[in-house]
């Protein structure tokens, strides 16, 4: 830095340092708070307050109704009731979203790797292709999958020609369809953080690894993978968290046997109108995910996500 100043473009004209910023008391301390204000107010009104209301509704007496109103009876039993009744759906949600996350990682990593490191001039086009599905509604895309996997769709027609599928076997309304739908819908959320992480990878590090006797597989395991770990953590979180609470895929592609906790919460709120139990289930899901994520991030040992 000093060398730059000494021989800077100004040459022999004297270098004049910029004026010192006004120090201490005169600095307007409230400016950063002012900048936080709009977002803060928004979060307060539309996040903090609703979460507070939701939290209090978990302890209402479930014998009330929307017409008669609910009574605050501090009924902690709502949690144990919900957990007991819907434990299978909880486990199923975690299982499906876990499988979908792993599938997204297995599909997304090579894809992100190819785009980031081998994309060349096609890189932007490939990224657009990853994001393009967002131009269509989530619901419409899932309905399209319903058509693709339907009993008389071309996928089944082809599969029935193989010896593994009998005339009564189906894809739609199976756990496979739900997990496949989740995988499809959340794949971009896996690819984008991975791409961001792999795009930052300095290819010269791979040259150095090769120069130091690491074959391509070893280079990947010792250099590429550890350096893309923030993307892996970010991508799995962005996939697992929304997938665990998703109900659209189970609703459209599944059957009553594949009900996820999201479907239970949705029907408790909108059909059964059992608001206290629905709220308690939401909180259990939230807390469960929070614990899992905390453990996961702590174990993976990355300070920065993405």
């Amino acid at each position, binding site marked *: 830095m000093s*060398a730059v100043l000494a021989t800077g473009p100004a040459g022999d004209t004297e270098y004049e340092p910029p004026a010192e910023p006004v120090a201490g008391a005169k600095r307007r301390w409230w400016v950063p708070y002012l900048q936080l204000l709009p977002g803060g107010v928004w979060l307060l009104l539309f996040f903090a307050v609703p979460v507070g209301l939701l939290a209090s509704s978990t302890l209402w007496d479930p014998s009330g109704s929307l017409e008669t109103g609910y009574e605050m009876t501090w009924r902690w039993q709502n949690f144990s009731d919900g957990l007991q009744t819907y434990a299978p759906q909880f486990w199923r949600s975690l299982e499906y979203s876990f499988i979908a996350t792993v599938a997204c990682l297995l599909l997304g990593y090579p894809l992100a790797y190819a785009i980031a490191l081998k994309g060349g001039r096609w890189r932007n086009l490939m990224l657009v292709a990853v994001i393009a599905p967002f131009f269509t509604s989530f619901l419409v895309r899932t309905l399209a999958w319903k058509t693709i996997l339907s009993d008389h769709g071309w996928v089944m027609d082809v599969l029935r020609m193989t010896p593994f599928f009998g005339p009564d076997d189906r894809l739609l309304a199976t756990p496979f369809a739900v997990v496949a739908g989740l995988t499809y819908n959340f794949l971009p959320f896996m690819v984008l953080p991975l791409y961001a992480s792999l795009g930052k990878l*300095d290819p*010269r*590090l791979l*040259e*150095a*690894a*090769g*120069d*130091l*006797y*690491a*074959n391509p597989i*070893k280079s990947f395991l*010792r*250099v590429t993978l*550890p*350096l893309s770990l923030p993307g892996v953590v970010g991508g799995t979180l962005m996939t697992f968290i929304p997938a665990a609470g998703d109900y659209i895929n189970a609703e459209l592609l599944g059957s009553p046997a594949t009900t996820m906790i999201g479907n239970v919460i949705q029907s408790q709120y909108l059909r059964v109108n059992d608001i206290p139990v629905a709220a308690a289930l939401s909180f259990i899901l939230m807390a469960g995910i929070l614990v899992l994520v905390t453990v996961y991030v702590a174990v993976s040992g990355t300070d920065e996500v993405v």
Partner: protein
Amino acid sequence: MSVVHNPVAAVSAATGTPSPGGLALTRVTKRFGAFTAVDDLTLHIPEGSFFALLGASGCGKTTTLRMVAGLEEPTSGSITLGGSDITRMRPYQRPVNTVFQSYALFPHMTIEQNVAFGMQQRKVRRSEIRPAVQAMLELVQLADYGHRRPAQLSGGQQQRVALARALVNHPQVLLLDEPLGALDLKLRRQMQIELKRIQTEVGLTFVHVTHDQEEAMTMADTVAVMHAGRIEQLGAPTEIYEFPASAFVANFLGQSNLLTAQIHGPSGADIAVEAYGSRFAVPAARSRVTSGPAYLGVRPEKLHVTTGAVPEGHNAVPGVITDSSYVGVSTQYLVRAPWGAELAVFAPNSGTGGPLQPGADVTLFWHPAHSFLLAADGEASSLVEQP
């Protein structure tokens, strides 16, 4: 015009008969599309030498290095190391290590892990790795930094880690790709001495790519000056500096005054030339050509400036000082010769009088043994100051 010395002949002259353990490049060419980065290069680097590839950016020196490392594949030609052909070997199969210009340290590993990386890949036993890493960190004076991450080290320290990471593997050839380019001047000088010390200590073959002529001259036993994908001259630093093979070398390595001259022919042990109406003598042993047009070259520090008489047996040119800059150890003058060209003179400030002032009428003189005669080929003409 007959050329006495050509660069290819100089190659074998400088390195003698190829030693079996050395690195040899034979007729290596590398093209990137229509661009020829390295053009029919033949080079032998003896085992245990400190060899510098010197050239401006884009001359092909880094491409040459990368081909030896295996990071680029030659379009044609072959590379052998210790007698075995490594031309098509993958980088991880070669007993060659590189100190990269950017260092390319693994940011997620500690310094120890970085240095241990190569040995781990070669499946060296764990009990051997630890002491080797520690000894290497001591050699580069970073013994206490093993548990830090690269980002916590200064540029000079990172450079030494990169060196340790490569050296610990005892490669047959260590390649250094402008390893000191990112350091400031003082640190660079320090590291040059350090590198030279380490090379003497470990006795490995070092191939050092640089564009810094001073760096090449102070560190290397042998310097190859590259230009446009070819080697212009190869030899010991003093040899190249004192008797450059071409006008390019004369001006790339230091600075030279080149006078356009016409050769008259031999006179005794000298060759008589005429430049701008004056007769000069150049020893035949310092002539690259014996007839036709030529450049008469003299280094600025070999020119003496006087207001008095010229000593016996010297060549002389009258002139007027147009510029004088005092730089402490010496004074640098520009002197306009009668034909209009300006000659550079570096005069040591060893006299008792002050420096001469611009406008003074002076005589420049030099000993014939300090001048050299080069072929006046077309390409070099742009390097000669025209009147």
